[in-house]
């Protein structure tokens, strides 16, 4: 059964060092309170998977030294430009980068969702993305009359999927609406730790107005109610991003010292609040 926990920090305690952690893109449901809790608990050697891209979440975790590997189609702060701690880490060679392309991330997760060892996809052939991914294979399309190489992407099984959703019920059902990548991420992963704006009464998986956008509790390891748990990002259909804060982050994170001060102000002292 889905555990109902009291805080993002309680969820973070269940995400082990070295875990392969799937994160949604900035325009989806980012669990930033849980990101901060992971930093506070001193998480190490995380393998982040951006589904299919990732931004602030990854940058903060990288800056705080929690990350060994980033696997994604892009790391970007959108209109704020390059992610400073990611860029610094790549230049310094302190994280391993597994560049991908969006549908390869989706295809790997869908293979995991289907219990298949791999998915095949068009594209990629002739790119340096493929050339630098020996874990992907080019095979022959067995249905083609002539030579027809196609890329096989192995099942991508996250140890943990984490995101911040608008609501859950006490049975562990989590409403994600049209942010369906969060459902695939939960299906594909071994565990899902989800913060929500609100834990509500009733059964979201059976109420007609929510059922089609709800992840059943079967796939949800634990939830915690965390108000504004996406901050400083927004939650689609809810509040918007805190653009002033993100702008300040980008300024401070240009230097290691500035980033350390940001962590001190925004993350390390925030335990009581989350």
């Amino acid at each position: 059964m889905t555990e109902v926990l009291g805080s993002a920090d309680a969820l973070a305690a269940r995400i082990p060092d070295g875990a392969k952690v799937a994160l949604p893109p900035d325009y989806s449901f980012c669990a930033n309170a849980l990101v901060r809790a992971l930093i506070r608990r001193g998480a190490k050697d995380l393998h982040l998977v951006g589904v299919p891209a990732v931004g602030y979440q990854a940058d903060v975790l990288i800056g705080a030294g929690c990350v060994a590997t980033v696997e994604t189609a892009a790391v970007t702060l959108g209109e704020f430009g390059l992610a400073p701690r990611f860029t610094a880490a790549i230049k310094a060679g302190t994280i391993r980068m597994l560049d991908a392309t969006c549908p390869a991330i989706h295809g790997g997760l869908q293979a995991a969702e289907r219990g298949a060892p791999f998915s095949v996809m068009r594209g990629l052939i002739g790119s340096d993305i493929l050339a630098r991914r020996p874990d992907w294979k080019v095979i022959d399309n067995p249905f083609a009359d002539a030579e027809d190489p196609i890329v096989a992407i192995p099942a991508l099984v996250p140890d943990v999927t984490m995101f911040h959703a608008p609501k859950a019920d006490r049975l562990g059902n989590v409403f994600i609406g049209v942010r369906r990548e969060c459902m695939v991420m939960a299906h594909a992963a071994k565990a899902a730790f989800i913060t929500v704006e609100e834990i509500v009464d009733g059964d979201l998986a059976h109420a007609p107005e929510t059922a089609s956008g709800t992840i059943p509790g079967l796939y949800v390891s634990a939830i915690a109610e965390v108000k504004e748990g996406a901050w400083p990002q927004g939650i689609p259909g809810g509040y918007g991003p805190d653009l002033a804060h993100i702008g300040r982050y980008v300024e401070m994170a240009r230097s290691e010292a500035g980033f350390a001060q940001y962590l001190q102000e925004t993350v390390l002292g925030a335990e009581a609040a989350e």
Partner: protein
Amino acid sequence: MSDQVQLEEILIGSIAGMLDGLGHVAVGASSPVPGAAALLTRARSNGATRVSVLGSENHNFFTDGAKELFDCAGQGRIDAFFLGGAQIDGKANINLVSIGDPDRPKARFPGSFGSAYMYYVVPRVILFRLEHTPRTLVEAVDYISAPGVSEPGVHRPGGPHALITDRCLFSFDKSRARFTLASVHPGHTVEEIAEQTGFDYDLPEGGVPETAAPDAESLALIRGPVAQQLAEIYPSFASRVFGIDKAA
């Protein structure tokens, strides 16, 4: 906003000219000029052209999550898409990843996004790059996010159609894997393009025309409904170029 036709308006009109008659144009995140061109095409088609703008609430009808754009393209339901690149080379290879050795790069960019798929499957990919210099338009990219052309035998219904920059428009010939200078934007010259372009390209017979400005009707659409729609998606662009603040 002055009464003079602005560069952005020329770009919007020129791109829309490459989209007319298409059924569905998709626009990636953070692409205000291509987005405006797609919205202009839709306005000129009386809604017959569908437009999907990633990151927009109003102009994005997808309901199947982040994968739907790529599924939709794979199904052949997207007729045109836009890509850029920190570097673009003469074979239309694009680089969205890094400069120098990718393991210890001199510069690192966000990453390839969906380019290594969309570039292969969308029939009409328009390359868009506002910084036209020998540093961005290079002989050979340092990292191929997606190649401009593929070997025979590689399934590739899609690919580059044109490259538009702040200085000019190039068309692309897939069979020869080469660009041709199609037109030069007002205020720029053929000689300047030669100086500022790091790759070889062809010149058309009979001289290079000037890129046409949008006609009066299109200009009115750009400055009217298109600018209003743009303000929801790209408020700072709409404010800067059209002096429009985001609608409540």
